[in-house]
């Protein structure tokens, strides 16, 4: 007997998500059996689950390279090259998140097994974000991504700043997601469906409810813009990044942002091609503002985590520029390739930079000022060199992934200029603010090498591994970007 329902569910397509989800549930229970002094077992078990998902992803890469895309859950989610590529990024980020916490949590006296379980849950949220083909799924995935992150931000509960970060993140996040739901509701009202492809058909064929849909789209932008830290929805970012435990900051600065961009790209390109010029302009303006504000305010920061937070805002601007470039359907695939490549390069670089920040941070949560980096050039030459590489990559200097990412993004934007001249102005802002950004990134290098200081840092094996891997990846993306970019471009939505 045929089982059409099971067939349309297509569990194999979402196997990596299932593995992590199932494993996270098992781990949640299993963690209770692990004695308090042995919580690192949970971490290793979480790693096992993530590696399992990585293996599954590895097999899917070949599969989807051949077949293109597959729908699952009756079309609620789409698995294609784009989502596979991003899922790889998410799983890698999660692995790094676990490794960073491995030593950090006991050192700061906040080692609890829930950390790893929550990390797995939020990873699932991100992964589903990247494959959501229905606005309902977008919302659920977004919440699945966010709620564990609220808790993780406050994971250093006895530290007031951590708690405060969690509360701010939570209140603003819930506030922003209510706009998102409202936007979904309006879009649903305007088109009668929540399926992205269905919306695309309805928007083109029926202009009657267009205002409703357009405003709905605008509110969707708010919700997702909040996640990616775009101006003016960015204000939570510095406070939360600074207050949250640093491994969490590292994880969410990469994962949550990439998740937000994944949904943003898919929703805009798949569902709203008919009003591309509207969202294109909006996003271009937001991108310009984001780059300006992020880079300018970063200059006057003295806390490394806060500085990286503004840097993260600024980079959201660059990525948004490529998203805006995707409004022209003929160069959408290049623009999406640029976004995905930039996300990967940014992920590697930023994780590396936060790893260094973790190594420098002291047990009581202090040691996060940029001045604390003084003297590292002498005491920790390799680590300082890696940090210098990350800073150069974030600035966009040669032989780093950051430069290549920026070049792709600007190129994508310039290709789209004929459709939207505004993009030219935003590209110019982007180039100028890149120059400005050198100021605060190079300051870190200067402090490390030129300033006398104790240069104390704790660098256990897990951090070393992450550092080496991220530095290597950054260099590889900078020196031979070709293969990865080809993969990223092939990752375009099918």
């Amino acid at each position: 007997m045929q089982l059409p329902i099971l067939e349309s569910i297509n569990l194999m397509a979402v196997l990596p998500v299932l593995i992590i989800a199932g494993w996270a549930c098992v781990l949640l229970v299993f963690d209770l059996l692990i004695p308090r002094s042995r919580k690192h077992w949970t971490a290793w078990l979480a790693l096992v689950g993530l590696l399992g998902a990585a293996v599954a992803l590895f097999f899917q890469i070949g599969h989807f390279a051949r077949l293109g895309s597959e729908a699952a859950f009756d079309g609620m989610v789409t698995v294609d090259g784009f989502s596979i590529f991003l899922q790889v990024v998410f799983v890698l980020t999660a692995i790094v998140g676990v490794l960073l916490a491995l030593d950090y949590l006991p050192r700061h006296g906040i080692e609890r097994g829930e950390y790893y379980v929550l990390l797995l849950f939020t990873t699932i949220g991100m992964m589903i974000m990247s494959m959501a083909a229905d606005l309902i799924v977008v919302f659920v995935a977004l919440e699945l991504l966010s709620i564990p992150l609220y808790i993780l931000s406050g994971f250093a509960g006895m530290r007031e700043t951590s708690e405060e970060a969690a509360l701010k993140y939570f209140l603003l996040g819930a506030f922003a997601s209510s706009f998102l739901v409202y936007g979904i509701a309006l879009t649903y009202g305007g088109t009668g469906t929540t399926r992205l492809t269905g919306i695309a058909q309805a928007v083109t064929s029926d202009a009657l409810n267009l205002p409703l849909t357009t405003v709905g789209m605008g509110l969707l932008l708010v919700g997702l813009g909040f996640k990616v830290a775009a101006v003016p929805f960015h204000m939570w970012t510095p406070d939360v990044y600074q207050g949250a435990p640093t491994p969490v900051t590292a994880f969410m600065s990469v994962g949550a942002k990439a998740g937000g961009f994944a949904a943003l790209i898919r929703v805009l390109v798949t569902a709203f091609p008919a009003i591309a010029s509207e969202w294109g302009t909006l996003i271009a303006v937001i991108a310009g503002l984001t780059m300006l504000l992020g880079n300018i305010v970063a200059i006057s920061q003295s806390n490394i985590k806060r500085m990286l937070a503004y840097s993260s805002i600024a980079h959201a601007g660059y990525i948004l520029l490529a998203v805006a470039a995707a409004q022209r359907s003929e160069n959408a695939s290049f623009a999406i390739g640029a976004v995905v490549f930039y996300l990967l390069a940014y992920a590697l670089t930023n994780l590396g930079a936060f790893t260094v920040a973790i190594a420098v941070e002291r047990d009581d949560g202090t040691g996060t000022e940029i001045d604390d980096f003084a003297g590292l050039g002498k005491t920790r030459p390799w680590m300082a060199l890696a940090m210098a590489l990350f800073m150069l990559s974030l600035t966009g200097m040669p032989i780093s992934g950051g430069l290549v990412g920026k070049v792709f993004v600007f190129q994508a934007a310039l290709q789209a200029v004929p459709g939207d001249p505004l993009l030219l102005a935003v590209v110019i802002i982007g180039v100028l603010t890149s120059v400005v950004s050198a100021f605060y990134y190079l300051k870190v290098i200067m402090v490390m090498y030129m300033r006398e200081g104790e240069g104390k840092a704790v660098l256990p094996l897990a951090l070393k591994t992450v550092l080496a891997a991220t530095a290597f990846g950054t260099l590889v993306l900078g020196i031979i970007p070709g293969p990865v970019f080809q993969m990223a471009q092939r990752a375009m939505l099918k």
Partner: protein
Amino acid sequence: MIPLHWYLLVAAGMFALGIYGVLARRNAVAILMSIELMLNAVNINLVAFWRYMAPEALNGQMFAILVFAVAAAEAAVGLALIISIYRNRETVVAEDINLLKW
């Protein structure tokens, strides 16, 4: 039958009320309640749209239920956070929670 836009207007009003609450109330619990109000306004919208625009599929209804569930989860997390802060600082006033700035 009551026209659709009545529902929409009520929902919009509730949503605006919720925004006002978030911006105007100082008590973190009250802010949380305002957010719940916004979510419920959306639920009214969803159900109304479902009934009037696309009654053949269950999308709207189902989404409303999901929004409930999410709202409940958020409330749980939010209240836990607020209680934890209250234990440490003996305040739930949002303005007092500003160690992190600039």
